């Protein structure tokens, strides 16, 4: 009897120490379970899930993932964690992620937290349960620093989307071009008061100061704010030539309408999430001509100069009968499933530590450019899709078309300034 009790305790201790270790052994035909816990209620989260499903369907249609000669279909388990909704605390998002790990016994996670604040907290959870994750929305580079500082613990966290650091690189390239083309040197900064937007704006502000630009003002807005008139009046009074914007909330769309009605004689450039998709032209009554908006990953916007991005964009539109609306998330989410598939096939297992090593060896031509991870498990972004993954800046034409204007390797048109902006600068 004593032996039975002792054995039960040993077994229990083993199960507690290795809670999901056993499911790493797959039998032929067993599905590979990929979890998608994110803020599905957001446009970025919702479209990212659709792209994950699209990639999984494509892979399954070709037989699935091959591990040591046996085929395994991919099964997607999505979960709403609402971490981007105002007032939802990080611990609530963590509970959602822990639940999907334990209940659905996922082999890996893609997309992951929406807010960087939630990503930072999730890293410990992933280390605890040894679940690899390819994040595609949260953007703070703080997670890379954490991985470099303690690689053994945090090695399970990868990111395929753009980070604030790379976004600043894109922006400084655009600012240089604006300076050369139009002689712009005075900027007014407006951003949402969230981690990634604060980081991006601070990075750009530092660059402006070093590069001889004058920052005429800086306003931060809490998530949910919908009246920007005071900041726009200040920008106008201080004669700003450029209004830098950095927002990912739905209400930020009003900013462009207000900017037009107050007639601020400066060019607007940056990121306003509702302005990214092609439907924005109709939604905002065609009043967004001249606006420059970033697309965080190529593929979220089509490019005739890079066929994989064009093919992905068209395939999404064909499948879901609607174009992509978000400029951030969908392309790397789609790409992540393929990155994971190839890594599993290289590793020959779904066991986490082996899979992480295989993920580190990733090098593929993806829909947003070439996909390779650096030491911080971050996909390297640059300006040429043949060499690195690429983010892009596009500009709305007065005819309602989105035209990529930066980087030059994929640019379809030169940056232009509306007549009323140029007139005021003379």
């Amino acid at each position, binding site marked *: 009897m004593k032996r039975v009790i002792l054995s039960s305790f040993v077994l229990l201790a083993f199960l507690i120490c290795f809670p999901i270790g056993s499911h790493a052994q797959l039998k032929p035909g067993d599905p590979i379970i990929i979890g998608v816990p994110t803020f599905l209620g957001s446009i970025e989260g919702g479209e990212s899930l659709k792209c994950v499903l699209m990639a999984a369907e494509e892979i399954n249609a070709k037989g699935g993932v091959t591990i040591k000669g046996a085929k395994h279909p991919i099964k997607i388990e999505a979960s709403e964690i609402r971490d981007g909704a105002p007032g939802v605390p990080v611990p609530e998002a963590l509970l959602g992620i822990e639940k999907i790990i334990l209940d659905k016994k996922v082999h890996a996670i893609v997309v992951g937290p929406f807010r960087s604040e939630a990503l930072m907290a999730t890293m410990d959870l992933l280390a605890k349960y040894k679940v690899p994750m390819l994040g595609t929305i949260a953007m703070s580079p703080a997670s890379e620093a954490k991985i470099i500082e303690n690689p053994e613990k945090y090695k399970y966290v990868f990111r395929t989307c753009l980070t604030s650091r790379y976004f600043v690189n894109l922006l400084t390239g655009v600012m240089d071009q604006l300076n050369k083309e139009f002689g712009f040197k005075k900027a007014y900064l407006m951003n949402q008061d969230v981690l990634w937007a604060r980081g991006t704006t601070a990075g750009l502000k530092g660059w402006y100061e070093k590069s001889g630009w004058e920052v005429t003002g800086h306003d931060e807005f809490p998530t949910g*704010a919908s009246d920007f*008139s005071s900041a726009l*009046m200040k920008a106008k009074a201080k004669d700003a030539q450029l209004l830098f914007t950095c927002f990912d909330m739905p209400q930020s769309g*009003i900013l462009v309408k207000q900017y037009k009605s107050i007639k601020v004689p400066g060019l607007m450039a940056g990121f306003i999430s509702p302005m990214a998709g092609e439907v924005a032209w109709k939604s*905002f009554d065609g009043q967004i001509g001249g606006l420059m908006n970033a697309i965080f990953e190529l593929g979220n916007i089509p490019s005739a100069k890079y066929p994989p991005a064009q093919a992905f964009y068209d395939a999404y539109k064909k499948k879901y009968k609607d174009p992509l609306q978000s400029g951030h998330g969908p392309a790397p989410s789609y790409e992540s499933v393929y990155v994971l598939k190839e890594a599993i096939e290289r590793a020959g297992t779904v066991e986490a530590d082996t899979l992480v090593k295989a993920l580190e060896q990733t090098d593929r031509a993806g829909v947003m450019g070439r996909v390779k991870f650096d030491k911080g498990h971050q996909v390297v972004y640059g300006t040429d899709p043949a060499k690195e993954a690429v983010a892009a800046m596009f500009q709305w034409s007065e005819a309602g078309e989105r035209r990529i204007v930066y980087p030059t390797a994929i640019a379809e048109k030169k940056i232009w300034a509306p007549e009323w902006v140029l007139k005021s600068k003379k």
Partner: protein
Amino acid sequence: MFQGTLIYGFVNSVTLALIALGFNLTFGISGVANFAYGALYILAAYTAWILLTWLKINYFLSIVLAVIFTSFIGGLIYRFILLRVRGMPISEVIASFGIGLAILEFFRFLGFVGSEYTLPVFIDGSVSLGGTYIDVQRLLIVGIGIALVIFLWLFTHYTKTGLAFRGMAQEERTALILGINSDKMATLSLAFGSGLAGVAAITILPLGQVAIEGGYSALLNALAVCIVGGLGSTVGVLVAAVLIGFAQTFTATYIGSHWMMIVSLVAILVILIFKPSGLFGKQKELEERI
């Protein structure tokens, strides 16, 4: 810039008053704090959008139908849910807040998220007021806000239903003695208040976007104005809207935009400490406590 701040401060004040009028009217008549108010505000906007975009109904007809529909839903909420808990303030708050959450999150569940949910402005373009440009829609907000206040005054002073509303607001038991059906009036007050939320939504939201989060901020703004002005007092609502509206705009212009959102919260805090019944509130028992 000072002139611009004054103009935009005034528009902001009228916007806040417009948002708060319906909440205040319902509370003043029936005593029900309708915490589903923000959800009804967004319901009206989504209804107008659906009628306009999916059913291709004329914009102004869509607006009218959306306001009527929202009023109807408000009436139903009272008749089938709030009536059962009337007189139990905590239950009323919990029930109405729950209904509001359910409505808003149902829209999220249905996928009403994205940039395509916008309503067209009534008249496009902007005009210059002494060098300050302002959109025509904002001027319309001011016009509609003032017209609504005048309409409400006339309605409550010269119509049978309006007089019954006032009777209920003054003393419900005496109103009952005089043959006023209090349940019917309370239902009407919910419907009327919800309709006003609808009018506010379709007037204000063409300037921006219809988003679920907007429901929560509309409720917060309505609460702030009503608490500061004094629950149930129309004069209080107008004065509080002016105070908070100007304070928000001046804070955003001269201190920092990220402080703007806490102005209303600070106003609630200050008023609850020094005059808990609000500037023009009639709940004297609250004042007696301090």
